């Protein structure tokens, strides 16, 4: 990445990180206000308290549920924005992937493809240009989005292959076979050459097979 490209990316990340921090504060205030309403209902003796609790219980619970959803998204976006801080840094690829999968879920849903992150407790550290690594992941997913039928699911996880490490994007469909010659179809998508070029810059090796895509690093 050129110095100018790095500075532009970092500016985008810096402003996004700053705005998401503010969003976290907004959500925190909404959550505390909903909590205070619950407290008032619980702590203040009043007539018809049962009816009030019954009528306000559901909207308050909805507010809390949606705040939790917002916090998860905004926290992921904040973490993603901070990956532009350094040109190269030691990152936990598992945490990085979990975050990117959550942020990409809507893009998958737009074409009817589901994304599932296979949880892994153990971190996997890599010193890398984190944005470039995420670009590789994103291209792998976009390439799959282009060829998979609606209702397909991509499971993103890590295979214990020792060295090199392997991130897998395994595809399946609940009720129809996957397209034959998946590697051939993937190679024709616009995202595939971008993935190959991006991966070469950080020593990541993409591999397509009939089960999906692997990133070896």
């Amino acid at each position, binding site marked *: 990445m050129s110095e100018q490209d790095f500075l532009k990316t970092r500016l985008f990340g810096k402003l996004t990180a700053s705005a998401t921090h503010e969003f976290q504060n907004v959500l925190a205030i909404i959550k*505390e206000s909903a909590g205070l309403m619950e407290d008032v209902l619980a702590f203040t003796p009043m007539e018809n308290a049962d009816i009030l609790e019954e009528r306000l219980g559901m909207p308050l619970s909805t507010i809390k549920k949606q705040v939790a959803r917002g916090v998860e998204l905004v926290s992921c976006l904040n973490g993603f924005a901070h990956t532009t801080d350094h040109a190269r840094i030691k990152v936990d690829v598992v945490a990085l992937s979990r975050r990117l999968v959550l942020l990409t879920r809507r893009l998958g849903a737009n074409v009817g493809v589901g994304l599932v992150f296979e949880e892994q407790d153990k971190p996997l550290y890599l010193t890398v240009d984190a944005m470039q690594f995420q670009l590789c992941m994103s291209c792998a997913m976009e390439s799959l989005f282009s060829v998979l039928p609606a209702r397909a699911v991509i499971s993103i996880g890590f295979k214990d292959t020792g060295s090199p490490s392997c991130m897998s994007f395994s595809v399946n469909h609940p009720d129809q076979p996957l397209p034959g010659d998946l590697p051939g179809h993937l190679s024709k998508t616009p995202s595939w050459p971008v993935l190959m070029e991006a991966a070469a810059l950080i020593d990541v090796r993409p591999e397509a097979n009939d089960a999906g895509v692997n990133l070896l690093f």
Partner: protein
Amino acid sequence: MTKKSIKILLIDDEEEFANTLAERLELRGYETRTAACGEDGLGLLSKESFDIAVLDLMMPGMNGLDTLRRIKLDAPDMPVVLLTGHGSTREGMEGMRLGAFDYLMKPLDIKDLTLKILSAVDASDGEKK
């Protein structure tokens, strides 16, 4: 110490957040004072004594870590619980290295906060004895 007698200094530049949280803590029997910046918090600390401070890390002007350093000079025995945004665990860890009891992420769970306050004050009382 019972929670009835715990006096909390709550320092956060998000005044609506601080005031709402203070009200929720008061409903649970705690006594609270709020300050909208580090300087105001230190000002209150110079006039009154507190059992614990709950301190936001991300504040304009004197930031949370600088405020924490000053608190540890002015009231070294008072425990401090830090509040961080999600994704700011590094600052939380740095705060603990500087002497904070622990840190919690915003948005908070009020039960987590009250448990943390009680254990911090208990630990501080134990050390004083």
